[in-house]
């Protein structure tokens, strides 16, 4: 993890009040992710995994995942970096799963990233503060 502390990362409120945040992967690829404290592990869409060149045939391992309506298996891979604002986590594990096409974000920013900071959600400002 690197970068100075106390970043205010401006995102957007989407329908229902959820907060979406721009995230940069491997120092080159930026996408909107939904910030989700109910998601244990940061998740990428299969399109993102393909774009950034993750080899889905060689996952670190598989994990059982439980969402509100199903339990399934999903591959876990590793990013060299995930950066939000100037706060960066390196060598971080991510799940790769299909996202509903109607959901126009490319991933979920989960607890395995957020727990490395002291995150504060300022919903009225559409801002995620990472200390």
């Amino acid at each position, binding site marked *: 993890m690197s970068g100075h502390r106390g970043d205010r990362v*401006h995102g957007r409120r*989407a*329908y229902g009040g959820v907060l979406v945040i721009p995230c940069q992967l491997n120092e080159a690829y930026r996408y909107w992710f939904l910030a989700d404290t109910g*998601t244990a592990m940061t998740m990428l869409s299969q*399109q993102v995994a393909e*774009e950034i060149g993750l080899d889905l045939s060689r996952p670190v391992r598989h994990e059982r995942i439980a969402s509100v309506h199903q339990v399934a298996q999903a591959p876990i891979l590793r990013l060299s970096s995930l950066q939000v604002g100037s706060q960066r986590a390196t060598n971080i594990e991510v799940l790769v799963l299909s996202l509903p096409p109607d*959901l*126009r974000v490319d991933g979920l920013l989960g607890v395995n990233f957020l727990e490395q900071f002291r995150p504060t959600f300022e919903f009225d400002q559409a801002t995620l503060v990472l200390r």
Partner: protein
Amino acid sequence: MSEKLELTLEEIEAHHAGEWVLVEETTWDEAGNPTKGAVVARGNDRQSLVQPTRRLHTQKPGIKTFVFYAGPKVPEGLVVVL
């Protein structure tokens, strides 16, 4: 290759409303957030940008890209419960 038009991200959102866009970032603010970019590819569905994104990064190593839907990130009426 012809030079692509540099636009603010807000202009890109407005010009390509309802489309997925692949943007090559060209200008950033002090915090490193992109402020301007050039649209390299666009499409009506997310999958259509996968190959253009891979190709662009292969052709231009070191570039930074932003792929996003130009419009509401969660459509009106879709309640997210993951």
